[in-house]
């Protein structure tokens, strides 16, 4: 479920439980986040992907402060278990998302896992990754007959509006 502030206010305790306890949950999130930074597109269960998403975006916000900032470096050091990904975070991912204020990740659901548990799976990726798009944008074909007729109609209307203005 979507863990929103509204839900926190109305329903109270809505935090997810993962693994053996809160420490285990953070360790799991750390591992998943490291995998995300390493591969830029990962496949996990739906709940885990949803949890990691918040932390992934916050990590980018910290990385944008630059690697000279002590807090940012401490955060990156804590969250990334493989220490050779810290330069990648500061030098590759942070400059990629300079122009965007938020929305660095994309999540898409995929078919349930084939195992006995039939867990709901999701793909989590950082935007701007080098892989082919998850959901290619469907553009209507401009060249079909009806679109060509409509194009001619629109141009004629524009022409008429122009001559009327003159």
């Amino acid at each position: 479920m979507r863990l929103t502030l509204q839900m926190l206010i109305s329903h109270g305790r809505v935090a997810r439980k993962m693994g053996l306890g809160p420490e285990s949950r953070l360790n799991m999130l750390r591992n998943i986040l490291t995998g995300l930074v390493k591969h830029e597109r990962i496949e996990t269960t739906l709940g885990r992907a949803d949890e990691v998403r918040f932390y992934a975006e916050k990590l980018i916000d910290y990385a944008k402060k630059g690697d000279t900032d002590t807090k940012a470096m401490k955060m990156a050091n804590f969250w990334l278990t493989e220490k050779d990904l810290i330069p990648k975070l500061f030098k590759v991912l942070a400059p990629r998302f300079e122009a965007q204020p938020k929305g660095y990740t994309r999540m898409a659901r995929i078919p349930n896992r084939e195992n006995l548990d039939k867990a709901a799976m999701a793909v989590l990726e950082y935007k701007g990754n080098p892989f082919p798009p998850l959901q290619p944008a469907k553009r209507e074909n401009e060249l079909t007959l009806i679109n060509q007729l409509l194009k001619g109609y629109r141009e004629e209307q524009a022409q008429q509006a122009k001559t009327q203005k003159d």
Partner: protein
Amino acid sequence: YACLVSCLFLFAFWFASSPAVVRPSSGGVHGQRSAVFSREQARQRALYPRTEKIEVVLHGPGLHGTLLIMNKGVSTPHSCARHLTEWHVKSSALALVDGEPWPLHKPLIQSCSLSLLSFKDKDPSLVNQAYWRSCAALLGQVLEDAFKDEYSVELLGIPELPVTSGAFCCDFVLDPQLDSWNPSEESMCSLIRGAQQLIHQDLPWESLEVTPSVALEVFSHSRCKQEEVEEKAAKSNNGTVVLYRCGDHVLLSGGPLVARTGLCSQYEVTAIHRLGEGAWGLHRRAQGLSLPFQLEAHHTVWRKLRSRATKLVSEDFYWLHFKFLKGQCVESCIQILTPLFSCLSSPTKKRLGYY
């Protein structure tokens, strides 16, 4: 049905002047043309008495490199589609054989590569143009059948217009007795009914490549058509003329036509304009609008497109866009334009001239 009856009632008001026409009734003419066509078709089929096999390589989504073993001179792209799925049969409008547009019911004569084109391809411009031509041919057929036998109808030809012009058109000349006739609402309705009947019958457009002498024999009763045959023979690469037959009517066309009449779904005859006096009498232009069954428009959209299609379309502003005619456009446009140039007035130019 009521509008058909009222239409005939209107025509009955014209007095028939002493019939100096020697030509047989239109039904007889069409029957004769169809008989010559069938004879030529049988003769061309008989050129391949033994069944020889050819290899056809299919190209298309999901079909890359599929090999079909077909019969030479008998198998058509339609029969190749029948080996695939029903969807291929229903949706393919035109075929591309070795890169060249090929009518779907024309027999294949050598091993080639084939791809079936439909209205929803990535680049359906060839199919769109063929569809436009076919709708205009259908309009010509409806016009030929619409009038009584004592009034002659001469189809002058189908001007090549791009799809963005908003309507397909067919130039024709009526009997001089009908010079002051103007189409009323009921007559337009009856024309649309005639077209819908043809569409419902789902007749295929059969094509045949013939020598000019056979084509001249087919159109022996019409001087205008014979001139068109001579023009086409002069323009073509190997001196042959392609004839198309739909039901009972044989006609000429500037390019390949789509597979069958059933591909059209929304079809309306929008207007009949007078173009003024020309070489054969009072030239008229019938315009229509149509959409295929896969691309039907909502009635609001259709109404807007239809209101645009009632305005006269002219070719002189669209000749820049005839890339697919590959150089023939200029000659054909000059031939079409010279008798009609006097008829086009400046208000039309302001309305339509945006290219």
